[in-house]
């Protein structure tokens, strides 16, 4: 377990193993391949750098915190793996452009490889990463963070690719414009870059980030590892911890998946097994698993989490590793309340993903841990 009650902690290789699983679950299929992310973080650790996580509560109100993450299509970062120092080049260029020195790095997206990207960059820069993030999951677009939803303006920002190109977005009139311009740039740069956004104050981060998500993801990963070790059901362990439930089990019978406009988009079709033997289900993909339909009815949709696991091992599957014939379990987990306000639903509700016909009906909220 990761215990931050005594202040900042340095992560171990074992913590990274747990984070790979936990961020894979919270990543709802996207956020980049967590295995690749873990290997990168591990290489940095083995090279002698420290991967430090700082408790949210100890952040100084005046601290300058730079949020960053990978942007592009998970499929690309799984094949054209990053050069490795893109994030550091972003951070340095942004500090230079603004004439500031960063105090800490923030995570934009705890899901998938984007849980690791801030750790890698912060380690190389000698900074801590704050224990929280802007999504509590993964979303395909940059304006979909609680930072942006609750008023942070993310420009000036910097985007770097493996080639050494550095692009500064000096000013975007809205967060959506920033996403649109960044997306065009990332396609030009080959589909998987890193972006560092304008700094947030410590006070803002304490108020509007999804809190303690590194602790949560690592704890979730350890819970799955323990369940596997004790031959208990990892799927039940995940649901118990996150207040979720299993909504389907089945075999993938078709997979439409392609790279379009800087995203992985597609649909996975699943034929029911076990208690769902006479059902057919479908999951809509845009980098993440967004909407789960069963027999033509929407059962789970964004911003609640649609998680796809290997049916037998309980390990999370990302959209780029899905295959014909895979046997999967689908879980529904409730999202954080900060994503359920009307302000949030204007940015991350189903209509924002091209599904205005779908009404978001929230899953029962997560009960406070005993």
């Amino acid at each position, binding site marked *: 377990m990761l215990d931050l009650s005594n202040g900042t902690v340095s992560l171990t290789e074992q913590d990274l193993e747990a984070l790979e699983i936990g961020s894979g679950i919270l990543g709802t299929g996207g956020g980049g391949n967590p*295995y*690749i992310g873990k*290997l*990168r973080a591990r*290489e940095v650790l083995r090279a002698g750098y420290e991967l430090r996580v700082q408790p949210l509560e100890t952040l100084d109100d005046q601290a300058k915190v730079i949020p960053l993450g990978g942007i592009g*299509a998970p*499929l*690309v970062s*799984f*094949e*054209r*793996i*990053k*050069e*490795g*120092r893109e994030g550091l080049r972003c951070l340095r260029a942004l500090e230079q452009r603004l004439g500031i020195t960063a105090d800490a790095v923030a995570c934009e997206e705890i899901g998938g490889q984007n849980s690791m990207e801030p750790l890698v960059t912060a380690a190389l820069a000698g900074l801590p990463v704050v224990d929280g993030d802007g999504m509590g999951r993964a979303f395909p677009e940059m304006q979909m963070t609680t930072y942006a939803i609750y008023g942070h303006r993310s420009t000036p920002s910097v985007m770097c690719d*493996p*080639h*050494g190109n550095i692009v500064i977005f000096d000013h975007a009139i809205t967060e959506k414009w920033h996403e649109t311009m960044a997306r065009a740039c990332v396609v030009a740069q*080959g*589909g998987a870059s890193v972006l560092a956004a304008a700094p947030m104050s410590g006070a803002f981060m304490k108020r509007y980030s999804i809190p303690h998500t590194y602790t949560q993801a690592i704890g979730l990963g350890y819970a799955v590892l323990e369940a596997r070790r004790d*031959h208990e059901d990892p799927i039940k362990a995940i649901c118990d911890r996150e207040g979720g439930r299993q909504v389907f089990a089945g075999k993938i019978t*078709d*997979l*439409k998946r*392609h*790279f379009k406009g800087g995203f992985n988009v597609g649909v996975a079709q699943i034929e029911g097994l*076990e208690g769902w033997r006479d059902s057919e289900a479908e999951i809509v993909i845009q980098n993440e698993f967004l909407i789960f339909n069963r027999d033509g009815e929407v059962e789970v949709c964004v911003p609640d989490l649609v998680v796809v696991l*290997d*049916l*037998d*091992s309980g*390990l999370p*599957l990302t959209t*780029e*590793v899905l*295959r*014909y*014939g*895979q*046997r*999967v379990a689908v879980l529904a987990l409730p999202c954080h309340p900060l994503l359920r306000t009307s302000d949030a639903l204007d940015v991350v509700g189903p209509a924002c993903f091209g599904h205005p016909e779908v009404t978001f009906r929230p899953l029962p909220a997560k009960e406070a841990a005993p």
Partner: protein
Amino acid sequence: MVLRLGIDVGGTNTDAVILDGRKVLAGVKCTTTEDVMSGISEALEAVLEKAGVERANVDVAMIGTTHFTNAVIERRALDPVAAIRLGLPATACLPPMVDWPEDLAEVVGGHRYMLHGGYEFDGREIAELDRDGLRRIADEIVAKGIRTAAISSVFSPINREMEEEARDILQAAVPGLSVVLSSEIGRIGLLERESAAIMNASLLSLADKTITAFGDALKGAGLTCPFYVTQNDGTLMAADMVRRFPVLTFASGPTNSMRGAAFLTGVKDAIVIDIGGTTTDVGSLQKGFPRQASTVVDVGGVRTNFRMPDVFAIGLGGGTIISGEKDDLTIGPKSVGYRLGSEARVFGGGTLTCTDIAVAAGEAEIGDPSKVSDMDPDFVAAVRARIGEMLEDAVERSRVSPEPLPVIAVGGGSILAPDRIGDLEVLRPENFAVANAVGAAIAQISGEVERIFSLASQSREDCLAQADSEARATAINAGAVAETLDVIEREDVPLAYLPGNATRIHVKVVGDMEGLDA
């Protein structure tokens, strides 16, 4: 009727069976030998004699082997490989073999090279191919005396040209160099594809020797029929393909034993436990097929993205060593392995093994039962109870539903299994000891299609249907029964670099061989 010869070359035993249609005429078990060939020859002679068939009448031979998997697991007989990646400046943070166990990377030499090259998702070059760099590597390959190379380029499943050009440059500079291209082996996912290519390259000379030995053993026994080798998805590959792609045989052992168990019992849904000399493999049968692992599979500690059965092993077999008293038992994981015939007590040795316990309990007649007749019955009962618990744990892990499925016990060590495991009944089919060889003999025929389709004039669904029917036709021409064909792989990769909305479609179907219908 078709006469089929099935051979299983394991780490401990070499088994052979002859099938006439669905009937097992004879099965034999011999010890695997250092040179492989003499063990096969011995098994062949014995099984031909036992079945009483004419050599000239054997129509086809199928060989299943764990030889290549074991080489990786045991880190032996692997050649050094020049592992060359084309992709810089991208991918620099994770060099080739970054996630391999250190000892395995050392065995294949740790020759890691990264050069500029590779493609972006849309077909642009990440960087121009570093031809000078390749020539420098060629000089090093010559200086170090390396004989094989594995080349992986970023996005080679979408465009193979750069891997092919790099191969031509290397082979021009290093005559006789064997080169494996990652695009010949795997799918998108650079690290897994690259690792598979490196492992394949390190096994090439062993594959060549092994396939030659198989062929010589068959010729030596006067068999002139064609022979095939089983691969990890339970289908056959021509022997010459194994010389090029030995990695495709990984995990064929468990696949064969599980399919053999289904065939011998007629049961389609069960848990299969294959108890050998050192380990027990446990897996689950669904509709007569081994359940596939759907996440990545480790081979000797390396992640690959092959399609493989979901099997796990525990350290329990006929040669497993027992120590301690009845209240404080240690069973395994150490085993006397192929030295069972000299070290077990029933063979006059001084080591107490699981086989001795089975004999003492009257479950088996092996060796000299008088050597274990003085054992304390309470101790024997305690050991048997513990073995039962170990098997029950393993079976529970493989169960995915509370349904009371039968357990099929196969393999030479299945005398260790009790009549019930937990609440499940245990079946021991006739010929249980040679289920692996039976599985090889009934391996399936596959048909594959992989080519580029244009979506300009027809829909994706039409292209997939066309690929399906081409794959089916290929399988039927190769001798598969149409009614049994099933799609096991179907994938389409859009090729953004080609005009006309092109997509590469890969479909694989498998089905039973003719002459096996009940």
